[in-house]
């Protein structure tokens, strides 16, 4: 025990502990800044490695040329075919995932019993962890043969199958995040609606969904950026030939599958092929960033204060 007569050791220990606290605080801040450094590094690396590419290929050609043939004798570098492939697979995926995810979310949040909800939610979260290359296998080996029975003449590699499997893959995300948003709508709003004689479905579609719109929009945006950035499913099942088409039953490369295809070969550092994947990556980053900003703006706009 230290008696009040000798405060000196105490004071010293406090000073030491405070000094230690300051050191630790700056270390923790440094860890927090890793996130900022990562973002800066992503932008820096993509821009720095893509710049030499754009000194070879004029930006106007890159954005408007309709051919992407980097390995031909006379290479053409038009990003449009890759962007089209990305948009088509994304669209197919969303056409499946948004209705299915929303219906599941409304059902779980407004209709299902507590027990059903508590057992389905963790299962949905677990499905989010299934490796995407496994989904790629599903698309190529199981879904495509099945679709070929329905649509004779469907090629072995096609965007439809890849898109549908990406859709199945993102249903859990869309459902889980939308459900969270709907649960956050306070109960008195539902009760007010019931008191006016509305049924559960009317309450769900006219009170809960509008009230949770910002969260639901965020869920959709999350789904879109997953689908745009999804790589392995398209690399396995959609084919690797760049193809400017809006027809999902054809095969086509996406931005992501092009990057994978180039990475699988052994490209020398500093070659134009090496630089082209950074240019493609930059386009991908801009597309996902644009969706994220739209999502951010939407959530701001529709945020309801309770």
């Amino acid at each position: 025990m230290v008696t009040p007569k000798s405060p000196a050791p105490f004071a010293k220990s406090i000073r030491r502990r405070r000094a230690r606290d300051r050191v630790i605080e700056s270390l923790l801040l440094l860890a927090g800044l890793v996130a900022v450094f990562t973002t800066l590094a992503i932008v820096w690396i993509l821009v720095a490695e893509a710049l030499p590419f754009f000194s070879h290929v004029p930006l106007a050609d890159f954005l408007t040329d309709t051919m992407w043939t980097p390995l031909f004798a006379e290479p053409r570098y038009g990003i449009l075919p890759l962007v089209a492939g990305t948009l088509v697979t994304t669209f197919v995926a969303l056409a499946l995932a948004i209705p299915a995810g929303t219906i599941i979310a409304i059902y779980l949040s407004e209709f299902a019993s507590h027990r059903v909800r508590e057992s389905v939610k963790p299962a949905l979260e677990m499905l989010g962890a299934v490796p995407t290359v496994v989904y790629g296998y599903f698309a190529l080996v199981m879904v495509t043969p099945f679709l070929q029975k329905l649509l004779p003449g469907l090629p072995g590699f096609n965007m439809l199958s890849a898109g549908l499997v990406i859709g199945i893959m993102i249903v859990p995300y869309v459902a889980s995040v939308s459900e969270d948003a709907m649960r956050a709508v306070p109960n008195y709003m539902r009760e007010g609606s019931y008191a006016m004689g509305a049924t559960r479905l009317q309450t769900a579609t006219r009170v809960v969904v509008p009230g949770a719109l910002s969260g639901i929009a965020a869920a959709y945006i999350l789904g879109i950026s997953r689908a745009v950035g999804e790589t392995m499913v398209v690399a396995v099942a959609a084919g690797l030939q760049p193809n400017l088409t809006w027809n999902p039953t054809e095969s086509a490369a996406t931005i992501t599958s092009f990057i994978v295809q180039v990475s699988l070969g052994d490209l020398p550092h500093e070659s134009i092929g090496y630089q082209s994947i950074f240019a493609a990556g930059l386009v991908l980053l801009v597309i996902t960033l644009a969706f994220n900003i739209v999502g951010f703006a939407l959530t701001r706009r529709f945020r309801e204060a309770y």
Partner: protein
Amino acid sequence: MRAAQAGVERRKLFDKLFVLLGLVVLVAAFAVLFALFLDLLRQGAPRLDWDFLTSYASRKPEQAGILAAWVGTSLIMVVTACVAMPVGVAAAIYLEEYAPKNWVTAIIEINVTNLAGVPSIIYGLLALGLFVYKLGLGQSILAAGLTLALLILPIVIVATREAVRAVPRPIREAAYALGATRWEVTAHHVLPYSMGGVLTGMIIGLSRAIGETAPIITIGALSFIAFLPTPPLTGEFPFLSFAWLKDAFTAMPIQMFNWVSRPDPGFRVNAAAAGAILLGMTLLMNGIAIWLRYRFRKKINW
């Protein structure tokens, strides 16, 4: 009056129809996935044996195995965990316990949210440019582990923040009242109480990392490796070697991707077997995480 009655009846019918629709969609989603998983297991079953785990990749499908792949994946996960856990937890503690409300904090928060939405292949390009070439780490286990650590950092940070936030204020205030400094409050009270949530977040992050294929392909994993990395334990003093960090590698998802993209049906079977093992690993890890969360929740009564 009768018209109103009919309207009510119709709306009630819609309600029932929607319940039916919801159930059908939910069951269909799970049934499709369940059927796919089952089929994967059935197709891979003939190769799921001890030899498969202890053989290297081979040109003959029936002799090929995943030895190099699972060893590579395990070593990458060690690197990822060793980097993502301390950095992620420290960042989360800073944001929850220390950060003043200013623009620096706001920028960190925006970046964490934004990074969670960046496609994984972009991390691969970052790693290719930065780790492999600019920092000269080469196409190594270290580069792969660091890449996946950056990738799961947002997951670890968000999970840790939630766990830390769940610790009630009075516990902190009691510690402060006894003269503890901020770090003492954090290290002696807040962190032990939130350990369940932190571990859960870490396991979920690792289960995500274990299946990530695209970023590892981008930095140049090899798909045909017939040797193991330098063993981390050696016979001579100091008994620990870190030479494996610089070794070339392959990983489970890479091996599966390589097999599935070959036309030979024999390799498809191998891909299914590797996929079943990979799937089993991620589901097991997630199961453990959910169980941990449940146990820690039950143990603590505020």
